[in-house]
């Protein structure tokens, strides 16, 4: 067996270092294609947006890559922008809260079923999740129409037709509907992984149901709560499709606002600054998640 001996050397620290370097080179080689791709088609575009945010908008709406200035960033502090940002933040926050309140008992229920039933329930959650997002949002457009089925139902029950479409409420419903699975799945994962004997131990030590939940289940499921919240908050903040379909002209949100800078308003520098700003907020939120949640995992 020992016929193709590579070297007849004794081990030395230098060899160990050389071996590690060779392994690192291999890793780098494997990483290279995607690294190059992401640099060219992600990092560079990001830099371009950053650069554009300092550019000037000509009177015709064209972008002039000269006369660099902070005008766009200054404009970020305009009251109008603040209003839109506040509306978006509130909406994202409300979405996250509602998702959490609805999802927690739901995820808890699934996590406490028998394994066979659990899998079936999970598949039933996954199916709408994997279905087309646009279509699912559009379904609410149909449902919430003034002549729509829900409206007819309420009229049949003696009430008024529903006038929810094109309001913030409609957008909220649409966002909650769209992002609910993003909250359910991490919560479920955290609850399923939990050591339930701890809850039993708490009951054994005379804690009632509520206390056991408060002192054992809730703290242990917190990483799931944080993960789910981030997964809902971030997309909700930058939402575009949902407000476009369910919202109206009165409910401009950040997503709409940014897009309009590249279409109607033709102010690319400002749009770039906005995009970058929103991204920075999300990056901060994610870092907060990793700092607080990750160490509990």
């Amino acid at each position, binding site marked *: 067996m020992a016929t193709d001996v590579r070297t007849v050397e004794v081990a030395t620290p230098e060899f160990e270092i050389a071996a590690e370097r060779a392994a690192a*080179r291999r890793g780098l080689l494997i990483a290279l294609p995607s690294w190059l791709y992401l640099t060219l088609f992600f990092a560079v575009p990001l830099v371009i947006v950053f650069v554009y945010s300092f550019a000037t908008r000509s009177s015709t709406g064209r972008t002039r890559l000269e006369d660099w200035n902070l005008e766009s960033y200054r404009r970020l502090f305009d009251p109008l922008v603040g209003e839109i940002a506040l509306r978006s933040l509130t909406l994202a926050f409300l979405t996250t809260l509602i998702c959490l309140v609805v999802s927690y008992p739901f995820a808890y229920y699934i996590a406490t079923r028998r394994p066979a039933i659990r899998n079936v*329930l999970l598949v039933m959650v996954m199916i709408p999740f994997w279905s087309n997002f646009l279509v699912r949002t559009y379904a609410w457009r149909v449902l919430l129409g003034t002549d729509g089925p829900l409206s007819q139902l309420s009229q049949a029950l003696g009430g008024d037709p529903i006038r929810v479409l094109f309001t913030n409420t409609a957008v909220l419903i649409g966002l909650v509907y769209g992002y609910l699975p993003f909250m359910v799945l991490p919560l479920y994962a955290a609850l399923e992984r*939990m050591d339930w004997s701890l809850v039993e131990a708490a009951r054994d030590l005379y804690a009632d149901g509520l206390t056991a939940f408060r002192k054992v289940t809730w703290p242990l499921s917190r990483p799931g709560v944080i993960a789910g919240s981030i997964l809902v908050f971030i997309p909700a903040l930058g939402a575009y499709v949902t407000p476009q379909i369910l919202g109206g002209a009165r409910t401009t949100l950040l997503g709409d606002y940014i897009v309009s800078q590249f279409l109607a308003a033709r102010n690319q520098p400002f749009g770039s600054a906005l995009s970058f700003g929103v991204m920075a907020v999300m990056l901060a939120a994610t870092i907060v998640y990793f700092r607080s949640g990750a160490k509990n995992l």
Partner: protein
Amino acid sequence: MSTGVRPKSPTERLLAGNAWLVFTFFYAPIIVLIIFSFNANNNVGIWTEPSFRWYGDMFRNDDVLAAIRISVTVAAISTVVSTILGTTTALALERFRFRGQRTYDGLVYLPIIIPDVTMAVMMLLFFAQSFRMLDGLFGWSPSFGIGTISLSHIAFNISFVAVVVRARLGQLDPALEEAAADLYANRWQAFRRVTLPLIAPGVAGGALLALTLSLDDVVVTSFVAGPGSTTLPVYVFGLVRRGVTPLINAVSTVMLVASMLLVLISLAFQRGSTSKVSLTDSGVDPESA
């Protein structure tokens, strides 16, 4: 955890009730949509009688068919490329250590965090700028179309595939790869015969995710598409903004059913394949011994 039969306490009933409500919430809109796609009436909300009229219209509509063709093409290209690149990314991050790995790691995770509006803006400006440059340097002026859409989709899909595959890689008992080497496999053989089959479900899951994200995408695509290269969701989105018609219901139903079928097929595939075996089933988890 204990799964014994427990008496139904009030809390239990509440939880079950809540669960049923949530499921109704999940499925009702979809079901209503599907039902109304068979509505003969022009007016979307008012049900008159069942009809296949809108499906007929849909399949005769050239715009819809073109959009379907483009969606599938883009999805196919971006899924294949991003699955390959995403898998190599996961391998590089999980199995190796090299200088600059932290930067690489950050670069890979960034597309997941970025809102799609920002991504759309990024890609638009990038392509616009590069096309101007290419025109100036080489006289070659590419246009926005399937190429730009695919390139953009790949850019965000790589990360998602990488995350899924990486999770699966992390679950693998490292002793398995050592065992392969112990049994005379070289690095490539160990990868092909042990690692790859065992991460296959992760790769498949990542591919499915990439496919779904590509088929779902609206904002990025609408920014980097050109005339004549609309994808189905962008087309539907355009229709919806102009007003609701039953045609959209039919198209939507088809999209829904297609994506649900995809999921069920992939689930069935997973159940049937050997890789459904849990990774610690191969031996013993030393910690739990």
